[in-house]
């Protein structure tokens, strides 16, 4: 596609990490390193960077904050977090503020890191190859879109319904099957999903959904809990936002607004959807779990085939 080498910036306050990463990647990319968030911001301001891989815990500026600022300076730059301790706060911030592509834990597997960085670089390259996507001024008068709430707790639906106002259509499902039925028949822009479900594997479904319909944005809602599941939801489910329960009205309002804006941008520039490409799950669980009936599998196929927004690859 492009003969020029891509540029990758690594940020860490431990120089040995940077030295090691430089060795690992210098054969493939122009490798830049920065020892702090402030230094990294200077680099991103000064030149084109395809991907930034940052540590989370650094003095001065946390990784999530850095990536959020990188997003503002250079929206096309892909953002990855490489961190040694996954406290819940850091993970949630990396989703909601950093809108990161991957969350990778230290010590990392060299091959997995390589694949993640390569995928990020490819996406950035593709995006940069097409004329810069017109930054859609969030047209408040755009057509209404469809939202789907999946939660056993009707309060979630009530709040989404209220915040979405009259212009947007909000569907409500309490089970995965009814949700899939809706998804297979209508173009759903945003899914607001409660992760805790008595019987259904909502997390698994969100991951599968992103593979079949990358343009659909998901807002996960859950009591703070298992950080491991959340990291998987980032890497394999590319959730757009994570909101802790009990839901904060203001947080949900802002999340819905930016999801709606983001969805409209993707509609205008479908290449953007590629930014939400997901990692293949480690196991061969690429297809929906065997426990799901053939009927559910049928839904998934229809969702994929209907895929109004597909990767432009």
């Amino acid at each position, binding site marked *: 596609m492009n003969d020029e080498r891509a540029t990758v910036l690594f940020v860490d306050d*431990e120089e040995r990490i940077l*030295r090691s990463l430089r060795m690992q990647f210098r054969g493939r990319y122009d490798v830049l390193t920065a020892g702090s968030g402030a230094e990294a911001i200077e680099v991103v301001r000064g030149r084109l960077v395809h991907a930034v891989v940052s540590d989370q*815990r650094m003095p001065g500026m946390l990784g999530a904050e850095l990536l959020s600022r990188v997003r503002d300076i250079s929206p096309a730059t892909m953002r990855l977090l490489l961190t040694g301790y996954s406290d819940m706060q850091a993970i949630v911030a990396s989703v909601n503020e950093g809108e990161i592509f991957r969350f990778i834990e230290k010590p990392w597997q060299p091959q997995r890191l390589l694949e993640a960085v390569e995928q990020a670089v490819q996406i950035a390259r593709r995006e940069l190859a097409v004329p810069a996507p017109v930054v859609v001024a969030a047209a408040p008068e755009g057509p209404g879109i469809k939202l789907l709430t999946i939660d056993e707790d009707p309060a979630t639906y009530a709040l989404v319904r209220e915040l979405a106002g009259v212009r947007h259509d909000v569907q409500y499902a309490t089970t995965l099957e009814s949700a899939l039925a809706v998804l297979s028949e209508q173009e759903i822009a945003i899914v607001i999903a409660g992760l805790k479900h008595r019987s259904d594997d909502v997390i698994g479904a969100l991951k599968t959904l992103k593979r079949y319909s990358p343009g659909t944005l998901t807002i996960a809602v859950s009591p703070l809990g298992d950080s491991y599941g959340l990291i998987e939801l980032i890497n394999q489910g590319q959730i757009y936002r994570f909101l802790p329960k009990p839901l904060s009205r203001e947080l949900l309002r802002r999340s819905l607004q930016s999801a709606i804006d983001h969805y409209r941008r993707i509609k205008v520039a479908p290449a953007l959807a590629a930014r939400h490409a997901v990692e293949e799950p480690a196991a061969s669980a690429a297809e929906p779990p065997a426990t799901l009936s053939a009927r559910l599998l049928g839904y998934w196929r229809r969702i994929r085939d209907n895929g109004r927004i597909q990767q432009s690859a």
Partner: protein
Amino acid sequence: MHTQGAGSRTVARRPSGIPVEPMNSAVQPVAALAPASASPARPSTASVELRVDSLCQWLEPAAPTASVLAVGERFLDAASAPWLSLPVVDDGRPVGSVSRYELMQRVYIKPFGRELYGRRAIASVMHMQPLVIAADATIEEASRTIAARIRQPIMEDFLIVDADGLYVGMGKVLDVLGAMEQRMAAHSHELERAYHQLKSSQAQLVQSEKMASLGQMVAGVAHEINTPLGYVRNNVEMTKESLGELRGLLGAYEQVVDFFADGGDEARLAAHLQELDLRREKFDPASLDDLAGLLDDTVFGVGQISELVGNLKDFSRLDQAHVSRVDVHQLIESALKIGGNLLRKKNVEVVRRFGTVPEIVCSPAQINQVLLNLVTNATQAIDHEQGRITIRTHAVGQYLMIAVEDNGAGIPAEHLARIFDPFFTTKPIGQGTGLGLSICYQIIEQHQGRIRAVSTPGVGTRFFIALPIRGKAEATP
């Protein structure tokens, strides 16, 4: 009989009064504490409160008009045998009592007493202020009334009246004493239980404080370990890869060398040379230098990890009061290392003003815990960007002084007096049990040292520790 029945009822019901929930209290020590500490205040629950009516026995009263002789005869009845006195009741209301002793003294022992007084009404010789106690009074109230009113020596029992003041029976002073004694025994038993519960609750709280700081520590330590582990692993993998390439290169060289040794056709040599070129192209000899650098980093990283694990091991032995002669500066460095993550996170500068001090005899693990606690508290007190913690050491006579000073928020005077109190905390719920400093205090006291704090709100706080250089005066058991 009644007394005993009532007493055993108290004992039987007590277990339900104080819940014993070791499982719950392990999870929520504070919750378990509540009933234990409440118990001494309200020793026996209201439901088992012993009342006077439980001691009440019917004893036929005498009318005030009854003759002295007739009443005297009554004392010979089997029914009267256990009683010290007989009630005198007029129209249902107690008007007096006649004690066996007094009747003897006043009538029967006197010469011609029977003849002189025998036919008179009993009202003329009875005691006009009998002991009267309401049936619904508690045993405690009864015993107070008895103590206040009774005449010495004890020669009467008491009359029991209902809410309307009507005579319902008699009670024995001795039974009240018996009930009280049982009560006291039960109380002291409850107190003992409460004491034991309190003691074990406190032990659990100490443990949970340790666990809370352990949790914080694990978070920091996981990060500290995973960082070197990250590059160590990456470096090892890269070295492995390079070794593979190196082996291929060596193999290619070998083929060429073997060819010259063993001979063969030229086409094969060309093929060998071509492979060699390929391998050489792939392998950059300069990368060997880089690899050497990576391996240096790796050795360094592994050293860091083992140092951290070593520090953790020191801290895991908190309970062992193993005493040895140590360099306090090493303990300080160790505490700074363990607390290092928090320090870096807050960007706090650590200033060391170490004096020339001798080694001291102490329990290193415990002093470590104290120092870590002080450093952590100091860091937590800082909520601005120019955070600084100054640690000073110097020797004064037989004591080694350590001062830990921060430029954080400071402690208001009304809190300063209480900081060493167990359970006193100003941290948000869940972040501290309020035991950290009280444990520090205990540890320093055990070392026969002193710990004090001075603070100016808005300027900072300084903790002083003085430790005897030669350790505790007597040998540790």
